[in-house]
Structure formats: C-alpha cells, structure tokens
C-alpha cells in the first residue's frame, strides 16, 4: 500500500500547516490575553472608561484612545462615503469605457500606497494646510490632530469602500435597469430608484469593511494625530488612537503593568475589528443568500 501511505502522509502534512493557521489565530488571542492579564486584573472593566494614562504613577485607562479611534474612524467614514459611492457609481454606470480602466487602476493605486507614505505626505502637506485653515477659523493652530488624521484616513479607506460598492453595483441585473430605461426613466432615476435600493446592503457592507480598516490603521494616523494622551475636546485637538498609542509607546513600556496596558489596548482593538469584520461578512453572506448565488 505504498501509494495510500503517500496520500496519508501528504494529507497529514497539509493538515498540519492548515492547523498552524488556526493556531496562530487562536494563539494570538490567547497571547494577547495572557500578556495583558496584569492590566485586566488590576483595572478590570474600568480600564475602558478611565481617562488617566499615567505611566509614572502606573495608572492606566484606555478611554482617550477608544474615543480617539472612534471619532477619527467615523469622521473618516463620513468624509469618505460620498466620494466612494460617487466613484463606485461613476465606475459602474457613468464612466466611458476608456476612462474606466484608468480610474480603476488609480483607485487600486490608492490602496497600494504604504501607510507610512500617507503619513509623510500628511506631515508635510496636510498638516500645514489644516494649520492655515485653523488660523482662518481662529482655532488653536496645531495642524496635527484628530481632524487631520480623519482626512488622511478618509483617503486611505476610500479604495476599500469603492471596490466593494462597485462590485455590488455591477451585480444589479441588466434587465432591471433596461426595464426602467424602457419606461423612459433617466439615468439618475435608474440610479436612484433601481441601483441604490438594490445595492444598499452591499454598499453598507463596503462601508463597514472600510470602517474596519480605519479602526486599525496605525502609521499615517500616528504621524499626524499629535500624540497627546488626552481625551479630545474638539475634533481639531491632538489626541491618540488605540493603534497610535501602541506604536508610540510600546518600546518605551518598561514596567510590567505599562506593557500589559498597551497589550490590552491591542486586545480591545483586535476584538473590535473582529466584530466589525464579522458584521461585514454577515451582511455579504446574507446578500449572497438573497441573490441566490449571483
């Protein structure tokens, strides 16, 4: 039974590697929990709503960073959604074929640019620009801050939302659109009353997916957010996100509790993105079932 033995061996080998993937994911969760245990034990649930972040006194609360993350991510989503929707509609319905390829390529290019390069551009272009705006509005001219971070994030997440939205929009059955055109509907009416209602949950899924990206985005945000460990009092104020505080302070965390607190922030971030991704997946799965495998 030489061949059967080979088959068995190969199956076992490939299964081991598949198990490795599973182990990394589960082990990751366990590792984060174990490393953050001192902080979980000391601060308990109050870690989530305590504002103090004082490495010297050994007092840690994640609220400023949770707020910073949520505010920048949702603001980014708010700024980026009209553009991603517009781009997706343009690509799927409005663009002439010649333009479509180039536009599609540029959107992909936006996704390919490394985060740190967005950060560099943010520091030397966006920050001075926002500072000028703040002076014009008689706000404290930080330049850096939550608003600048949101702007950068908005640009960075646009390709993700766009590609999901475009995919769903191009799934709208041709006969539905043609039916409406045959009744004398204009292109806008077809878009407004046929395409958008049909693609609504897909557009939502794309937005959620983009949100997942924004929540975990680190470098570009770290470089323009101002890195102040305080809860923000205005959207222009310098602050930190969960990801940026880890990036900034991880190598400086000398005490056990300091490191544990940073890892716990990582754990929370891991869980939040997990929930967001499951949500996006659930929506797209439901979509597939509804459409009967389109």
């Amino acid at each position, binding site marked *: 039974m030489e*061949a059967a033995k*080979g*088959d068995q*061996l*190969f*199956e076992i080998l490939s*299964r081991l*590697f*598949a*198990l*490795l*993937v*599973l182990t*990394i*994911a589960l082990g*990751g969760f366990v*590792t984060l929990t174990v*490393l953050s245990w001192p902080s979980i034990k000391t601060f308990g649930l109050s870690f989530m709503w305590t504002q103090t972040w004082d490495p010297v006194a050994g007092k840690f609360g994640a609220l400023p960073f949770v707020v910073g993350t949520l505010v920048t991510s949702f603001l980014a989503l708010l700024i980026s959604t009209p*553009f991603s929707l*517009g*781009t997706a*509609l*343009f690509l799927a319905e409005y*663009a002439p074929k010649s333009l479509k390829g180039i*536009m599609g390529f540029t*959107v992909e*290019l936006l996704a*390919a*640019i*490394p*985060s*740190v*390069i*967005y*950060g*560099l551009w943010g*520091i*030397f272009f966006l920050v001075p620009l926002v500072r000028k705006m703040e002076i014009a509005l008689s706000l404290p001219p930080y330049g850096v801050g939550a608003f600048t971070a949101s702007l950068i994030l908005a*640009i960075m997440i*646009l390709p993700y939302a766009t590609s999901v939205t475009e995919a769903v929009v191009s799934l709208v059955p041709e006969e539905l659109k043609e039916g409406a055109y045959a009744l004398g509907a*204009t*292109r*806008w*009416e077809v*878009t407004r009353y046929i395409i958008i209602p049909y693609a609504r949950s897909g557009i939502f899924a794309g937005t959620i997916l983009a949100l*997942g990206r924004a*929540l*975990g985005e*680190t470098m570009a945000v770290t470089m323009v957010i101002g890195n102040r460990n305080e809860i923000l009092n205005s959207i222009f104020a310098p602050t930190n996100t969960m*990801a940026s505080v880890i*990036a900034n302070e*991880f190598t400086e965390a000398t005490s056990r509790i300091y490191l544990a607190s940073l*890892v716990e922030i*990582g754990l929370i*971030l*891991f869980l939040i*993105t*997990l929930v*967001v*991704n499951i949500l996006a997946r659930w929506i797209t799965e439901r979509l597939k079932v509804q459409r009967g495998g389109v």
Partner: protein
Amino acid sequence: MDKGVTRRLWKDRVATLLVTILALVPLIPLALILLQLAVKGITSLNLQFLTSLPHPPGEEGGGVLNAIVGTAVLLALASALAVPTGILAGIYLSEYRDRTLPHAVRMAADLLQGTPSIVIGILAYAWVVRPMHHFSALAGGVALAIIMLPVIVRTTEEVLVLVPRDLRESALALGVPSWRMILKVVLPTGMVGVTTGVLLSIARVAGETAPLLFTAFGNPFLSLKPTEPIDALPLVIFNYATSPYADWWRQAWAASLVLIVLVILLNVAARLLARRMKGE
C-alpha cells in the same frame, strides 16, 4: 416638451455632474502624493543615497543602503516562512473540503486578514522578541509572514478549487496517487494564480511599518543576520519624517520614492500575471 420632463432631464444632468465630481475629487490627493513623491524624491535620489549607510543624526548626507538591504532580508524571511505554509494550508482547504477543520481554518485566515498590523506586531513581539530577549530581523519576518499568510492561503484555495475535476480524475485514472496528482497536476495548473497572490501579499507587506516598530526595530548599520535588529525602508521613512532634521526629511521623501517604486512594480507584475491567466 412639458415642464415635468424638462425638470427630470435637468435633474439627471445635475446628478451626472455631481457623480463625476465625486469620482474625480479622490484623484486630487493621489496626484498630489505622487507628484510630491516624484519631485521631492527625485531631487534627493542619487547613487550615493542608495549605496551608503546613514550618517549620524543631524549630520548631512548619507544613504539608506542598510534599509534597502533590510527590506530585502525581511521580505525574503517572511516569504520563506509564509509561502510554503500558505500554499500547503491552501491545498488542504481546496482538496479536503468536506471536513469541519477547513471551515475553522478559513475563519481563522479571515480573522488574521482583518487583524490590524500593529496587533500582529505585538504577537511577533511576544512569540519571538521576548524569548530571544532582543529585537531581530527574524521577529520582523515573522510579523510580516503572519500578515502574508491569510492572503496566500485564501488565493491558493480559490485558484485550486477552480482546477477542473476532470483533470484531477484523469490523473487518478492513470493510476497516479492523489498526493502526486495534487502536487504535479493541480498545483502547476493553478500556479499562475498562486504566484499572483504571493506577489500581491509581498507588495502589501513591503510597505508595512507598524509591525516592524518593536520587532525588526531598525539598525543604522548594515546587517544580514536574522538574529540582529535590522532596518527597513518604511522604518526609515517613519523615523526620518518625524525627526527634527531637514536633511532627514529630504531623505524620507527619497526613501519613499524607492519604496513606492518597489510596491508598484510588485503590483504591476501581479496584474500582468493575472491578465495572462485570464488570457489562457
């Protein structure tokens, strides 16, 4: 024409204009970034920049040879870890579909793919840096490999599932054992697609910075050793951009140009391969 129709037509025109504007605005930042990268990057880019080591902080001149070599070492380490693992795991998912384990592994891969890269950095820190008691290229390579892994697993699975059943059966009907059928017929048939996935995953991690901060850490000297800290282009860009020296800002732009050219080349190669696959 009656009033209603005129109004509807006007509405349509306004909507077309609006959609077009919304679609064109995102091109502005992209154009600005690429333009500034080109202008600021090219003026600082020369042979000396590519072939010499950094000068001490505050001193003008110097280059990023250490970071270019470091990025190459990190990508090689990450690929060596992630490519075989990812392909074999992907084969398992595509060839042994009717089990419970593949479902769990698929979920795990999706979970890893959605995990922020900074969190992956913490894992590599816990698994490699802590046991070794110091930062190392290996730790950076492990972090990047964990990011590459789910992409390779899922593309391998997707590509191999598409290999026709007929082809598998005709190999088996020739008396070929199924493990040889998988390695010599199924995998080669899907190889172009798998390679595309691998290239895209390398392109993605080539620009990753966050997971390297507390794993590879950075190193102003030339190093090839997996056990030593190592520099990388993204790390240099981050450190220089946030430094107080104007000459380092200039170098950050030049390093960014090098990095973006690398990333775009990898993307273009993957796209060309994907197109060839479609053509076949």
